[in-house]
């Protein structure tokens, strides 16, 4: 009987694997675009997506088929990106959403040379917005990308990032402010054109 259960389990897993590969084929393009916007270059985007795909496969038994697979994969990808940045030792351990221990607020980034993704800034070429995104703190960047490029609502972003709607609102606002300040400093003409086109 135990062997029959094991055999049935293998059959179910084989079907799951086929199902997983089919869903991945349908979703990987959009997931790659998100990975590219989060990392700023093709090599890191592919590594990140591969990491996310393997994690998704490992935890596929937890996937709720009622939900879009692409959104589930995006959530895993965002988490994998946070881990990737932590591994690189570039993510501050203090929360940027909360006041500092001294009671004051954590200052906005002023020194662009000490940015969390300095390498990403250097690798991003020819696109002021992509370069500007690299200058934004990773948590803020993720929230801005999910809102402006993926077109998610705040509630959806909160679920994807595992945080509250209030935190999402704060991250998006601070992310856009950082992005705008960077663009004003590095690409003032681009900002002027952007406003003129409105």
């Amino acid at each position: 009987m135990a062997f029959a259960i094991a055999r049935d389990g293998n059959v179910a897993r084989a079907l799951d694997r086929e199902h997983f590969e089919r869903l991945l084929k349908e979703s990987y393009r959009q997931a790659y675009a998100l990975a590219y916007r989060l990392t700023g270059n093709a090599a890191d985007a592919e590594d990140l997506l591969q990491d996310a795909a393997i994690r998704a496969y490992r935890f596929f038994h937890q996937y709720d088929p009622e939900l879009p697979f692409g959104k589930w994969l995006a959530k895993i990808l965002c988490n994998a990106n946070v881990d990737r940045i932590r591994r690189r030792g570039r993510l501050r351990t203090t929360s940027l959403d909360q006041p500092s221990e001294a009671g004051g607020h954590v200052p906005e980034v002023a020194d662009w040379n000490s940015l969390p993704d300095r390498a990403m800034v250097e690798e991003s070429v020819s696109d002021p917005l992509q370069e500007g995104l690299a200058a934004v703190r990773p948590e803020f960047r993720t929230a801005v990308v999910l809102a402006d490029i993926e077109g998610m609502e705040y509630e959806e972003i909160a679920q994807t990032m595992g945080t509250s709607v209030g935190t999402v609102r704060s991250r998006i606002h601070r992310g856009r402010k950082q992005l705008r300040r960077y663009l004003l400093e590095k690409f003032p003409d681009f900002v002027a054109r952007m406003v003129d086109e409105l």
Partner: protein
Amino acid sequence: MNCRNAQAKLSALVDGELPGREALLVREHLLRCPRCAQEWRALRGLKLAMGQLPDVEPPEGLEERLLAAVRREKEASRPIRLWLPAAAAAVAACATLALLNLRADEPAVASKTLPPVPASFEVDRDQAYVAASDPFGPGPVVLAAGYGRR
């Protein structure tokens, strides 16, 4: 509403995520404050520009590389997954045998599971006991082993 309150809500206004009354208050402020209105235009322009970023095309062969990575993960986890049910069945079988063996060696449990004694045997046994207890009786009577426990 002052500038500080209004500015903190500008991004949410741009995203259409501000509740009706709050949105109305911020909009009223923007009509009166050119500086905040300029900030709102800038944030809106940024959002529109982000939305117009060109689509990112995946590199050649990415689909195949992703599927290959997932299949490598499958292969890496297969030996454990295949042996797990068989190992579980073997452990369960050993545990059952060990339990049966323990029960066979346990005397207290065995005495509780003896078959019922016929009534005629009980009468004979009690008469023998009375005879053995009689000081004027003919002599010692040999009783069955375990009689005292019944």
